[in-house]
């Protein structure tokens, strides 16, 4: 039985997607307010369920209402609310709202559904929304990015189809399940930008219209990450001890590669938008670290470590999404955005400076912001002595590797922060972007203060 708030939120999102082509023509610029209203209601419906008490992750049923689906749906709707306000600077506003709403609907479905057909449809909906968001910006860089993203999405969709067939049809055969899981990881690698499947990401996030990128990076990845948590959990439990280790090993490799390539790529980058594109790769690496720690804890039968790792991932998802929505919306306010050099940020106004500081420090993992608690829990789970694969020569190498990568990221995040506070001419045009910037910063601070009281 699906709870009423969930049915209501799905109905609202579905009705919004169906009616926006009509409403958009009538309301024109005001359609974003309707979208924001619906997003707020969806976020509140899931928040009410979440506060009422949900299991962390549910193993049965075709539609799973659990803490995982609630966190992803709340985050997608909240970020949708923020990004909808930024889109008012674009010409084709209502089309953007329509595509954004479809993306949020796809993400909510992807986070909750366990039915193979609905998974495929939701993945497709999120992919189409992703490249439509880019194409709607209309400039050459965004169009090129949209074509590249569409091409890679089509490939990843085919791989996902084969993976889901193998995983669901071959559920009695561990080898087929393992092969399906490997192919799923390749498809996930494309969607989430995990090396070596990440090559499209710096080119698309780095050059396209930042408002579109804020929606693409902050919403469209979330469903895929939720699906990764569910499918890898099922795979590890189905495979048992020897094959389950292989799954953990592959996740650890992908996570380590993601953190290193993302942070090294951003280190010498002067263009802030491209720097943030590489930072997205690194951030997904930390999420994968949490997922691998969760799966490893399941393989070794350590429920406390699994809980800690999953909690870390639950905090990382909103932390990442809100930060990316905030920073890309901020970048959209600067003229000459294709070359958004660090110096372009110099002399930013006080509210923008404060929100940029909050978002950058959150990505860095500075207390008391949400990103700090997320990193703390993920690193703690990765340093657990109960999981031998995370230890070498008596040292928790995996957690130390994550901390070293965080240390590398300090250099480039602080470079941007220094530029924000250095003197210079203000070139920003923040007419419609303040809601996204300030809203994301406020939510990060608020969540950072509330989280330790609620869950730690």
């Amino acid at each position, binding site marked *: 039985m699906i709870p009423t708030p969930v049915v209501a939120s799905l109905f609202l999102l579905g009705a919004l997607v169906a009616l926006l082509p009509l409403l958009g023509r009538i309301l024109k610029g005001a359609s974003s307010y309707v979208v924001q209203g619906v997003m707020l209601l969806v976020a509140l419906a899931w928040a009410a369920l979440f506060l009422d008490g949900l299991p962390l992750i549910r193993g049965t049923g075709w539609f799973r209402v659990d803490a995982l689906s609630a966190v992803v749906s709340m985050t997608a709707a909240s970020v949708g609310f923020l990004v909808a306000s930024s889109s008012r600077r674009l010409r084709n506003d209502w089309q953007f709202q329509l595509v954004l709403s479809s993306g949020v609907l796809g993400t909510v479905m992807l986070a909750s559904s366990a039915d193979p057909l609905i998974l495929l449809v939701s993945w497709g909906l999120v992919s189409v929304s992703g490249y439509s968001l880019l194409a709607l910006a209309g400039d050459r860089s965004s169009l090129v990015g949209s074509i*590249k993203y569409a091409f890679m999405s089509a490939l990843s969709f085919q791989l996902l189809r084969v993976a889901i067939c193998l995983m669901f049809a071959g559920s009695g055969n561990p080898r087929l399940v393992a092969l399906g899981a490997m192919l799923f990881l*390749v498809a996930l690698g494309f969607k989430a930008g995990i090396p070596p*499947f990440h090559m499209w990401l710096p080119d698309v996030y780095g050059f396209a219209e930042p408002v579109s990128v804020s929606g693409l990076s902050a919403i469209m990845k979330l469903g895929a990450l939720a699906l990764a948590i569910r499918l890898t959990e099922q795979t590890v439990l189905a495979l048992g001890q020897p094959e389950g280790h*292989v799954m953990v090993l592959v996740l650890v490799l992908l996570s380590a590669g993601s953190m290193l390539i993302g942070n*090294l790529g951003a280190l*010498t*980058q002067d263009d802030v938008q491209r720097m943030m594109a590489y930072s997205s790769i690194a951030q997904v690496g930390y999420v994968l670290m949490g997922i691998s720690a969760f799966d490893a804890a399941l393989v070794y039968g350590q429920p406390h470590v699994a809980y800690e790792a999953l909690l870390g991932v639950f905090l990382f998802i909103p932390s990442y999404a809100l930060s990316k929505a905030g920073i890309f919306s901020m970048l959209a306010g600067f003229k000459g955005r294709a070359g958004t050099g660090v110096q372009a940020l110099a002399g930013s106004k006080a509210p923008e400076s404060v929100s940029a500081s909050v978002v950058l420090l959150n990505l860095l993992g500075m207390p008391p912001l949400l990103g700090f608690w997320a990193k703390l829990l993920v690193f703690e789970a990765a340093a657990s002595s109960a999981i031998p694969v995370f230890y070498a020569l008596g040292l928790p190498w995996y957690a130390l590797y994550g901390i070293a990568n965080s240390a590398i990221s300090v250099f480039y995040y602080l470079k941007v922060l220094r530029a924000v506070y250095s003197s210079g001419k203000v070139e920003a045009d923040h007419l419609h972007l303040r809601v996204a910037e300030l809203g994301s910063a406020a939510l990060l601070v608020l969540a950072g203060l509330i989280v330790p009281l609620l869950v730690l």
Partner: protein
Amino acid sequence: MINSLYYRVIVDGFDWLSKTFERFESQGFDRAYNVWLPSAFVKASRKVRKLQGKGSITTYLAAMFAGALILLLIYMLLVIYP
């Protein structure tokens, strides 16, 4: 004689030790931390960005096939023929 021995052993000895430590600290540790380590990371960073290339889809596909091949090799070596 005691005075000469004191100066040769204690004063000169500690003077040598201090200079050696200072040389190690400024030219060894300090240089490694402030020059060698950052330059190694900068080189690695440039290498990563060079590998990224100029955004051609051929590069994306090559990386994809390489990645998928590695995953399938891991699968074959550790699951099929462990």
